């Protein structure tokens, strides 16, 4: 089984690669983890990961700027149902539109906009930066064995925008931050995390391990 981490000039690729390699080892999987800008490698991969750090529009331009990459990802994930994990802006890019700094189109794999977090309590700071627990809306294999809810483990968030106006069945987990912040999404063979699993110690590594073992 091969894992392709899409390199489009954005994201902490090195951290993501190391986290996936570690969990492949811990779960006893023979899974080379490739950081790649080659659409053919992505097309043939058994798992596809889209990381992302930065502004939505800038990341989208970077992704479109890799010739053939969006087509390869779409074919593998939407066409052939390869398991996909979007991380932070990588998850946001799955949406229809991003409204950060400028309005730009996402991949349109899930409905909704990436809009500013608007906590009811004005004392809450934006970015939503730090550790928060997950309120899960339903079971999902990538969450197997992970303690969630107010007494559960914390995940690391660092973002000002999140997915809104989406279909209710898309949202897999939320975080409370003066409003409901979309923390995880899932549809078909796709999963997205607004937090950074590769930076979330135990909870993040468990989720990555589960994603590697997921057979949708």
């Amino acid at each position, binding site marked *: 089984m091969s894992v392709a981490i899409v390199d489009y000039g954005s994201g902490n690729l090195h951290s993501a690669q190391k986290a996936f390699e570690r969990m492949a080892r811990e779960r006893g999987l023979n899974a080379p983890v490739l950081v790649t800008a080659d659409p053919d490698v992505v097309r043939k991969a058994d798992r596809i990961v889209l990381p992302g750090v930065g*502004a939505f529009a800038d990341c989208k331009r970077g992704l479109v700027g890799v010739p053939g990459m969006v087509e390869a990802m779409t074919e593998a994930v939407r066409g052939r149902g390869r398991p996909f994990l979007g991380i932070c802006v990588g998850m946001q890019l799955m949406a229809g539109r991003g409204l950060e700094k400028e309005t730009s189109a996402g991949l349109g794999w899930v409905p909704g906009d990436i809009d500013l977090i608007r906590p009811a309590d004005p004392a809450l700071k934006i970015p939503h930066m730090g550790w*928060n627990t997950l309120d899960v809306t339903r079971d999902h294999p990538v969450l197997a064995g992970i303690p969630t809810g107010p007494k559960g483990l914390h995940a690391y968030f660092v973002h000002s925008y999140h997915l809104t106006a989406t279909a209710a069945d898309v949202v897999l987990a939320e975080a409370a931050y003066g409003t409901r912040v979309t923390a995880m999404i899932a549809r078909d063979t796709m999963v997205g995390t607004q937090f950074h699993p590769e930076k979330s110690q135990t909870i993040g590594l468990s989720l990555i391990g589960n994603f590697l073992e997921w057979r949708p």
Partner: protein
Amino acid sequence: MTFKIRIIPCLDVKDGRVVKGVQFVDLIDAGDPVEAAKAYDAAGADELTFLDITASSDDRRTMFDVVTRTAEACFMPLTVGGGVRTVEDIRALLQSGADKVSINTAAVNDRAFVGRAADKFGDQCIVVAIDAKKVSGEGEADRWEIFTHGGRKPTGIDAVAYAREVVALGAGEILLTSMDRDGTKSGFDLKLTRAIADSVPVPVIASGGVGTLDHFVEGVRDGGATGVLAASVFHFGTFTIGEVKRHMQTAGLPVRMDGIAV
């Protein structure tokens, strides 16, 4: 409160080694920043900050290596600062495994750099480090100014106005150090922290002056910080991360206790 206060150990790194000294029990090499980072990761720190105090560009490559090796071993958030001057510096640090970069002097010299960096990498990844010193005299209204060069060089820039300005340009977080308190163990400058925290909508990390467990609580409760950063009290083992968190929890502040024995 639904968010958790962040406890952030800071490691000053020079030529690939931790300076100011680190004294951990069971640490094979206390001067290796990666070993120190691993110890803090295991201890339940919420983030780590590396401050590169190296001058030459050759040694800067050593810092990238430190960040790379840390990111391979520690799956936790990492902020790196010191000598960040260009968009390329930021890109290289992020590619090495940093999650946020901290800009100090370069932002004082060229405010627009903050905007360029935030447009490129997102506000959430741009920390502006402010070193401030009280300049108002006895009986005057409180006033703090920005100092550069480790607190030696005055700039005449008002700290509160500067914080507002860099946040408007895209800084996603302020790392606020009181030069008056740094190293004194007499507690954070709470008036300064409160003045900045009340002036900007982004998180403020209090730094400079922690000496007791109560100081951590005060920085949040009285200063309005959402993160507290300290160096020597952690390095020398005065307090563990767990002790600080338990103390804050007892004081009614929300902290993340994952992996920490209650």
